[in-house]
C-alpha cells in the first residue's frame, strides 16, 4: 500500500455503490449529512449482475416499503422498466406482488445520475482497504491508493466483491461479478477488528445473443396491459411505455444427461467451491441432482435491456465448464444454435455473520459502523436496497444524535428481513419470502405507505406534503369503511333484482353494505349499483376499503396476534446482562442469549434453543430487576 498523508473528512462514508450502497448514500445525503460513496468501478453503480428484474413475490413488497420510507429503488425501476406484471392477482391481496423487467444499463445509468446530482453526495472510484476503529468507534477508512477518509459513521455495502472469485468449471478468476475488480484487502482489516466472517456463494446463468435464439419454439410471456407503478409517487398514467416480452422454454432429459455426465467437472461437486450457496436459487446441476424425478425444468428467457441483444436464461445458472455449458444450453428448444455471450458462473465472496448487528444494522461492538446488503448475508437487489436504506438512515441518525429507525416484524417485510438476519442462524444467503412473515395479511404491498410513510416522515425522508397526503388517505379510508358499515340496503325490488343479476342470494332483511362486500361472490366494486350515495374516491382508497372489509375477520385476528407480539417486544433486555448468571436458564439458552444479546423478550423467544420455560425465567428475572431498581 502507498503511504500518503492525504486526508478528507465526511460525516458518512458508504463503501460500495450497489443497491444497498446507493440507498444508504442517498438517505444519508438527503438527511443533510456530507456523504461519500466508494465503488471499485464507477461503471458499476446499481449494477444488476444477475437477473434483469426488480420485485417478484415478497421482493416487490420490499421495494414498496423502501419507497414508503423515502428510498430510490421504486422510482428508479419505474423510470427504467421494460415489462411489468402483477403476480398472484388471482390470489389474496397479501401475496399480490409486482415484478418488472429492467433495462439493466438504463437502471444503472439512471441511478448513477441520481447519485451524481444529489447535494451533499460525492461519488468516488476507489477500493477501500482498511477500516479505522478507535476505542470501539469507527473513525473512517483508508483507500488502496493511499488516502485516508475520516467520518463519524461508515456503512459497509460490499456486496459480492470481498475476496471474490468466479468459477466456471476448472477456470477460476479472482474477480467480482462481470469480471469487475474484486476487493481483496478489506476482509483482513475487518477480521483484525474482531468481525466474524462467513463465505457464501451464488451463481448466475449464461447470457445468449438474441439473434441466435429461435423464439418460435418458446412460449411468449407478455407484460400486464395496465402497469402499476412501484413508487407511491409515480403517477400511474405516466407509465405508457411499450413493453417487451419474455419467453418460456424447458430443459429436457438430454440436458440432464449432459449435466450428469459432467458432474465431476463442476466445482460444486468436485469440492472446489468452499462457500455456502442458497437453496432457493440452485444451479441447474443442483436441480438435476436433487430432483432426479423431474424430467424437465422451466426456463425463462428474459431481455437484459433495449440497447443490447443479450438474453438472460433464468433457471439455468451453473458453474460447469464452458464446453459443457455450450452443449447443455443447446439441448433446449429454441436454443439449438445459441451463441453464449457470457458464460454462466458461480461466485464466492466474504460476508459477515449478521448476528453481530443490532436491528439498526449497526455493529454491536463497533459504534458508528453500519452495514447492509449481501455483505450481511442476504441475497437479492431488493433485500440489499432495504437494508442499505435502514443502514444509511441510521448512520445519519447516529451522526445527528437522533432516534434510530427500526422496523419490527409486524410493520414490514424489512422488519422480518432484519430480525431474521440478526436473530436466526444463517447458513445460506437469505432471501425474502412471504412465508417468512407471520403477519403477512397485514404486510401487503398495497398498504406499504400506510404502514411506513409515517416513519419515513419522522426520519426526514418523506416531505410534509407527502405526509399530509397520507393523513388524508387514511381519513378517506376510515370514513368510507364507517359509511359502509352503517349504510343499510333494504330488501326492495331494485336490490333483489340486482342480487339476482349477479347470482348472489336474495336479502332476507336490511343489511349493511359491508356485509354484502364480505360475500365471496361480491366486493366493494361490484355492489356499486346499489350503493347510491357512494363518494367519488381515488382508486387506492377504494382498494384499501375493499380489502379491509372483505377480509376483516382474518385481519382482526392477525392484529390481535400483533398485540401479543408487541407486548413481548416491549419487554426490553439490556445488553449488559450476563445470562450465564441467571439461575434457572438452561445452559444452551444462556449461551445462545449471550451470543445474540437480544434486545427484547420477544427477540429472545425467537432464538433457536431458547424454550418457553427459558422465556418464563427471563420474565421473572426482569420483574425481579425492575423491583430492585424501584
Amino acid at each position, binding site marked *: 500500500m502507498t503511504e500518503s498523508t492525504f486526508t478528507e473528512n465526511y460525516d458518512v462514508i458508504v463503501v460500495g455503490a450497489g443497491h444497498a450502497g446507493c440507498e444508504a448514500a442517498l438517505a444519508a445525503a438527503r438527511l443533510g449529512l456530507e456523504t461519500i460513496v466508494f465503488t471499485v468501478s464507477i461503471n458499476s453503480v446499481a449494477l444488476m449482475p*444477475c*437477473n434483469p428484474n426488480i420485485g417478484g*413475490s*415478497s421482493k416487490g413488497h420490499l421495494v414498496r416499503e423502501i419507497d414508503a420510507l423515502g428510498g430510490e429503488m421504486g422510482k428508479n425501476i419505474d423510470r427504467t422498466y421494460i415489462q411489468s406484471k402483477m*403476480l*398472484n392477482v388471482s*390470489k*389474496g391481496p*397479501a*401475496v399480490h406482488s409486482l415484478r418488472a423487467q429492467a433495462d439493466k444499463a438504463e437502471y444503472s445509468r439512471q441511478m448513477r445520475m441520481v447519485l451524481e446530482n444529489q447535494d451533499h453526495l460525492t461519488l468516488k472510484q476507489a477500493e477501500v482497504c482498511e477500516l479505522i476503529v478507535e476505542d470501539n468507534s469507527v473513525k473512517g477508512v483508508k483507500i488502496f491508493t493511499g488516502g485516508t477518509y475520516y467520518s463519524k459513521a461508515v456503512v459497509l455495502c460490499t456486496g459480492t466483491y470481498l475476496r471474490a472469485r468466479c468459477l466456471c468449471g476448472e477456470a477460476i478468476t479472482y474477480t467480482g461479478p462481470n469480471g469487475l475488480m474484486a476487493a481483496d484487502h478489506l476482509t483482513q482489516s475487518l477480521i483484525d477488528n474482531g468481525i466474524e466472517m462467513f463465505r457464501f456463494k451464488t451463481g448466475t*446463468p449464461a447470457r445468449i445473443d438474441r439473434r441466435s435464439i429461435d423464439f418460435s419454439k418458446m412460449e411468449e*410471456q407478455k407484460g400486464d396491459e395496465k402497469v402499476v407503478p412501484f413508487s407511491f409517487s409515480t403517477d400511474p398514467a405516466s407509465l405508457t411505455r411499450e413493453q417487451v416480452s419474455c419467453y*418460456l422454454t424447458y430443459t429436457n432429459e438430454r440436458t440432464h444427461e449432459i449435466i450428469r455426465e459432467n458432474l465431476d467437472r463442476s466445482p460444486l461437486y468436485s469440492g472446489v467451491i468452499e462457500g455456502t450457496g*442458497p*437453496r*432457493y*436459487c*440452485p444451479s441447474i446441476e443442483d*436441480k438435476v441432482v*436433487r430432483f432426479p424425478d*423431474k424430467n424437465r*425444468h*422451466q426456463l*425463462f428467457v428474459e431481455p437484459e435491456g433495449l440497447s443490447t441483444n443479450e438474453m438472460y436464461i433464468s*433457471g439455468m*445458472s451453473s458453474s460447469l465448464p464452458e464446453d459443457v455449458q455450450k452443449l447443455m444450453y443447446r439441448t433446449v428448444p429454441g436454443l439449438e444454435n445459441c451463441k453464449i455471450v457470457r458464460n454462466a458462473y458461480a461466485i464466492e465472496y466474504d460476508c459477515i455473520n449478521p448476528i453481530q448487528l443490532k436491528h439498526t444494522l449497526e455493529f454491536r461492538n463497533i459504534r458508528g459502523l453500519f452495514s447492509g446488503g449481501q455483505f450481511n448475508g442476504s441475497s437479492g437487489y431488493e433485500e440489499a436496497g432495504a437494508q442499505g436504506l435502514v443502514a444509511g438512515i441510521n448512520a445519519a441518525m447516529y451522526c445527528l444524535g437522533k432516534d434510530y429507525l427500526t422496523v419490527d416484524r409486524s410493520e414490514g417485510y424489512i422488519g422480518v428481513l432484519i430480525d431474521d438476519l440478526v436473530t*436466526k442462524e444463517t447458513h445460506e444467503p437469505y432471501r425474502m*419470502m*412471504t*412465508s*417468512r412473515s407471520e403477519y*403477512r*395479511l397485514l404486510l401487503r404491498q398495497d398498504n406499504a405507505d400506510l404502514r411506513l410513510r409515517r416513519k419515513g416522515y419522522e426520519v426526514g425522508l418523506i416531505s410534509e406534503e407527502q405526509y399530509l397526503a397520507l393523513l388524508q388517505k387514511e381519513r378517506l379510508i376510515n370514513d368510507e369503511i364507517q359509511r359502509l358499515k352503517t349504510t343499510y340496503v333494504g330488501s326492495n325490488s331494485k336490490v333483489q333484482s340486482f342480487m339476482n343479476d349477479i347470482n348472489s342470494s336474495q336479502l332476507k332483511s336490511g343489511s349493511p353494505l359491508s356485509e354484502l362486500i364480505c360475500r*365471496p*361472490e361480491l366486493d366493494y366494486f361490484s355492489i356499486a349499483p346499489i350503493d347510491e350515495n357512494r363518494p367519488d374516491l381515488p382508486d387506492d382508497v377504494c382498494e384499501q376499503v375493499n380489502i379491509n372489509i372483505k*377480509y376483516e375477520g*382474518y385481519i382482526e*385476528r*392477525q392484529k*390481535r*396476534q400483533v398485540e*401479543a407480539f408487541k407486548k413481548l417486544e416491549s419487554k426490553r433486555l439490556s445488553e449488559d446482562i450476563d445470562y450465564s448468571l*441467571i*439461575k*434457572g*436458564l*438452561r445452559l444452551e439458552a444462556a449461551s445462545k442469549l449471550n451470543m445474540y444479546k437480544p434486545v427484547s423478550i420477544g427477540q429472545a423467544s425467537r432464538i*433457536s434453543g431458547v*424454550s*418457553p*420455560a*427459558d422465556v*418464563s*425465567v427471563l*420474565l*421473572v*428475572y426482569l*420483574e*425481579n430487576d425492575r*423491583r430492585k431498581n424501584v
Partner: protein
Amino acid sequence: MKKDTIAAIATGMTPSGIGIIRVSGEDAFSIASSVFLKKNNEKLSEYEDHKAYYGYIHDKDGILDEVILLVFKGPNSFTGEDTVEIQCHGGILLMQRILELCISSGARAAEPGEFTKRAFLNGKMDLSEAEAVMDLISSKNDLAIRNSARQISGSLFEKISSVRKKILHELAYIESALDDPEHYELDGYPEVLSEKLLEMLRILEKLSDSFDDGRMLSEGVRTVIIGKPNVGKSSLLNILSGSERAIVTEIAGTTRDTIEEKIFLGGIMLHVTDTAGIRESDDPVEKIGVDKALAAAGDADLIIMVIDSSEVLSCEDEEILAFIRKNRKKCVILLNKSDKGKVIGPDEIACYTSDPVIVISAKEETGIDELKKYITDNFASGYIKYNDEIFITNARQKEALSEAVDSLLRVARSITEKLPEDFYTIDLTAAYESLGHIIGQDLEDDIINEIFDRFCMGK
C-alpha cells in the same frame, strides 16, 4: 390466540380424599359460572371475595360432582389475579374431567410453574424468592418435557407426526406456488386440499377419542403378566383392576394375543399387559402370540410371572424362568393356587432365579397385599412424583389436539367460502403448531426447509 386464564389440578394426582382444581386469570369467574351451579341449581352471579360456595360441577350431560367453590378476588389471591378453587372428590378421572371442563369453557392448561410465576410477576412474592421461582419453573418444565416424552406412546407420536407431515407438505406446496406462481399452479387445488383435510380430520378425531379413554397414554409402570395357560393370570388381573380400578381399556384387535389395562395400585399407575399363555406350539397363530408375550416382557418395567403351585414346573415354566434370568428385569414370581394342594414352594423357584416369590391365591384373594407392597416399595419413589404431572400434560395435549382440529375445520371453511389459497396457510400453520405442542416440536424454519427440499425453486 393464547388464552390468559389458566387452570390446573393443584393437588397431587394420587387418589385422595379431596382434589383441588385451581383457575386463575381475568376469566376465572365467568369460567366458574359456566361449570358451577349452586345447591339450588342456580348460576353464581356474584362472587364475594374469600367466600366458599357449595354446589355442583356440571357438564352438558348433568352433574359431575358435589364441590365447594372458593373465591379469591385479585389482588388478594395467591397469583394476585381473580382465582377460584374447586374442591372436589379426589378421584383422578373426576379431577381430570373437571379440569377439561374448565379448559373447554375458556381456560387453558397452565404451564409448569405458571401459578408461581404469575404470583411473582404480580408482586405476590418476595424478591428473595425470585431465584427459587426461576428454579422451580425450569425444573418443573424439565420434568414436564421428560414426562410428555414418556407419555406419548410410539403410535400416538407416529400418528401426530404423520398428520403434521401432511400439513407441512400442503403448506410448502401453497407457499411454493405463491412464491413462484409461474412454476407451481393452484388451479383445482382447493378441491384436492378438501379431500386431504377430511383424511387428516378423520385421523385426528380418532386420536381425540382415544385421548378420552387414555388409551394412547403409555404412562405408568409397564407391567407384563406372563405364564403358561390356565395358571390364573386373568383372575389376577381382575382382582388387581377390580380393587382400585382407574381406567380399563381393551385394545381392539389385539385381544387374541394380549390385553392391556391401566391399574392404579397404591398410588402407582400400572400399565398392565396380560399376555397369552406361553406354551410350546406348532400352531403358527399361537406361536405369534407367544413371541409377542416374550417381546412384551422384554419391554416391560416389571414382569409378574404366575406359576400354578399345585403342579410341578413344566418345561414352559422353565423356559420363562430362563427368559427372566437372561433379561434381568424387575420381576416378581407369584405362586398361585395356594388354596389347592401345594406341590412347589419358593425354594424350588430359588434354583432358577433370585427374584422375590410371593404365595397367593387369586381365588381367595390372599397374598395380594404383599404384592401391592412389593410394587409400592419398588416403584413409588420414582413414579408417584411423576404421576403428578401426567394428567395436566394430558389435558394440555388434548387441548392442543382440539385446537388443531378447529384450525383444520377453519381451513375447510375458507375453502367453502372461496377465500384465496394464501388464507389457508394461516390456519394450516396454526394446526401444524398445535400438533407440534403435543409432541414437543416447534415450527422453526420447517416450512421454508420443506419448500426447498420438496419443490424446485428459483432462477
